[in-house]
């Protein structure tokens, strides 16, 4: 008996996907798979072009986190040139990255998650969106919009006119920061701080209502990966690549260029998302999580006063000194990162050397391989280019945050389905919960599969014999 119910459009997920839930013999959901069905041969498209063009090209292809791709691509380009970029350019790139993190996390929290958190997971779907939030809690909705604008403003002040600024380039950045832009950022900071603190209060106040969710929304042991500074602090632009296990033990603390030694990429027939895993643990046991939760789990400390204070509270959600394993806490981690980024922006903007004009170094192709790793809002982003002597790309490989969280997202969906699906029908409420579970990871599906079109959210419940027991399509 197959039943297809068409319900409201998904307006809050940045990308769509098909989800299969497999029932076990006990009639409970045993496995979940996230299929990503559209694919654009992006990596192939770049082959034959020069690596100098890549920041601009990747920014255009991924509309969801263009800044992250520009930065990873520019860094891979620096590596091909084999040079050190001017210190000022590095500070400016970091500044843009922090701006990107603030705007992206603000979007995730206020626009995509706050409706669920503040209006309730089971509230009327027609109102459980940013418009509904504007009606019910206008101040909060407006604050979210303002905070996002702050991040975007930082990006725009640095990158200039364009929305997808190909501003970071191999060798540095194209334009310096003007004194006027610097003081604009300074003026806007206090309000941004207030909003970040407000968001933290809101989230923490709502925690009591979500006891079930905290335990059922992707709470499981896994590895965590991300960048840390040379001495173990929170890091988003450069540094060491660290892998930590579920007990909190550091398994790797390696130079980013060695990532291939311990990260493998599995390809699954059911998804175009590559599924990276930690090689020493094999596939799929080497599942790891990236993104805000992972970054806060792997670092020894944040490195700014307010964020460190929050980090200590955050860590109480982990069991006895272990990493925080509940994916629900991605929300919390995101807000702490916003605070951290604002503090870093505040600190950097005071740097007198920031506005000088030397921001780009030039060189020819010196290395035939270039690797650029940085932290996108959603997690670690890898760009690896192989070029010929002239700089023409021979191959391009990218590992994207959402791909790395693929296995963890499956597991989260599975947990939610197990907890909230009883019997053989998919209730409306469950769909919301699945959606929220996926949203914890803030996936950028169109980016990570390089798809241009839109994918519907399509959930199927499949019996052990392969029969589709129930099905729901959201278009």
């Amino acid at each position: 008996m197959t039943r297809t119910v068409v319900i409201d459009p998904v307006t809050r997920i940045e990308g769509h996907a098909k989800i299969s839930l497999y029932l076990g013999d006990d009639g409970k959901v045993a496995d979940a798979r996230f299929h990503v069905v559209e694919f654009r041969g992006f990596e192939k498209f770049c082959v034959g072009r020069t690596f100098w063009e890549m920041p601009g090209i990747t920014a255009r292809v991924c509309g969801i986190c263009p800044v992250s791709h520009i930065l990873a691509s520019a860094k891979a380009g620096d590596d091909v040139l084999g040079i050190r970029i001017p210190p000022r350019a590095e500070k400016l790139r970091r500044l843009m990255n922090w701006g990107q993190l603030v705007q992206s996390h603000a979007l995730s929290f206020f626009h995509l998650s706050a409706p669920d958190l503040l209006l309730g997971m089971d509230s009327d779907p027609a109102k459980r969106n940013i418009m509904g939030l504007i009606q019910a809690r206008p101040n909060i909705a407006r604050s979210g919009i303002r905070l996002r604008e702050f991040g975007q403003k930082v990006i725009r002040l640095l990158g200039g006119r364009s929305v997808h600024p190909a501003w970071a380039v191999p060798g540095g950045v194209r334009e310096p920061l003007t004194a006027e832009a610097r003081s604009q950022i300074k003026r806007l900071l206090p309000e941004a701080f207030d909003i970040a603190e407000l968001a933290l209060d809101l989230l923490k106040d709502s925690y009591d209502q979500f006891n079930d969710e905290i335990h059922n929304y992707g709470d499981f042991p896994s590895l965590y990966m991300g960048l840390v500074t040379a001495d173990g602090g929170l890091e988003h632009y450069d540094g060491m690549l660290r892998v930590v296990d579920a007990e909190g033990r550091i398994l790797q603390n390696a130079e980013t260029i060695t990532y291939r030694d311990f990260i493998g990429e599995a390809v699954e027939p059911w998804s175009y998302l590559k599924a990276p895993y930690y090689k020493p643990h094999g596939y799929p046991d080497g599942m790891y999580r990236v993104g805000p939760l992972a970054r806060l789990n792997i670092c020894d400390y944040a490195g700014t006063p307010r964020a460190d204070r929050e980090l200590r509270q955050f860590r109480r959600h982990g069991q006895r000194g272990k990493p925080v394993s509940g994916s629900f806490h991605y929300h919390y981690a995101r807000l702490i990162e916003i605070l951290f980024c604002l503090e870093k922006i505040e600190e950097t903007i005071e740097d007198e050397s920031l506005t000088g004009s030397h921001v780009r170094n030039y060189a020819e192709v010196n290395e035939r391989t270039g690797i650029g790793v940085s932290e996108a809002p959603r997690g670690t982003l890898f760009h690896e280019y192989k070029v010929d002597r002239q700089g023409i790309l021979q191959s391009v490989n990218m590992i994207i945050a959402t791909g790395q969280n693929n296995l963890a997202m499956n597991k989260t969906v599975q947990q939610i389905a197990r907890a909230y699906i009883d019997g053989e029908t998919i209730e409306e409420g469950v769909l919301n919960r699945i959606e929220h579970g996926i949203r914890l990871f803030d996936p950028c599906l169109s980016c990570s599969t390089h798809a241009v079109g839109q994918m519907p959210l399509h959930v199927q419940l499949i019996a052990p014999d392969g029969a589709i027991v129930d099905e729901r399509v959201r278009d």
Partner: protein
Amino acid sequence: MAVITMTINDELVSGVEGQSLLSLIREQGIELPTLCHLEGLEARGGCRLCLVEMQSTQRLLPACTTTAQEGMSIQTHSERLVRYRRMILELLFAERNHVCAVCVMNGRCELQDEAAKIGMDHVRYDYLVPELPMDATHDKFAIDHNRCILCTRCVSVCDSVEGAHTWDVMGRGVNSRVITDLNQPWGSSRSCTSCGKCVQVCPTGALANKGSTVAEMVKRHDFLQWILDGREKKQWVMHNGGSEGRR
């Protein structure tokens, strides 16, 4: 210098004998699109964008290579001409791989400009999507055949101004390709003096400085008049204040 009189868009105008139709038309303040033509280089009549219509016979003639003659009467923007110009532009886009958003000349490209001016918002023909290489073997410059419109300005400037004749055209029709020396990688060319004139006159993102990133390439044409005035008149005066050149 004898004066001639003729009619452009139903207006009587006068010019000098031997003057090209194009220059006479532009003297009247009429905007006529051109791509292969560049002031200072020999007119070729290749792109056909500057076609005008003879009132008497309805014949179409390229204004850049046609000499203005006493008693001529032409139209520059008849419905048919505008339609053809748009077709020509669409065909140019369909023939190679133009992705303006990631092009080094985005925002300053003559092809893109002409398309925008004529209101071309999409291409009605199937794209040929040819597989074309980039040649980045030269130390300073790169050519991306995906963006070449075969205007042959590079061939012309290299031959007539620099005197190196490094560039040429190989093949026929849509398979034509500009080449350096006898189709050797540009970097191994022995005739190329690396002066960069070809790069500067190229109307699109086909020729660019190596290492240029998206929308970063700026081209200047003012050196052309400078060299030619110096050569022919022994006069060295920089016109237009040395600003970014156009036509």
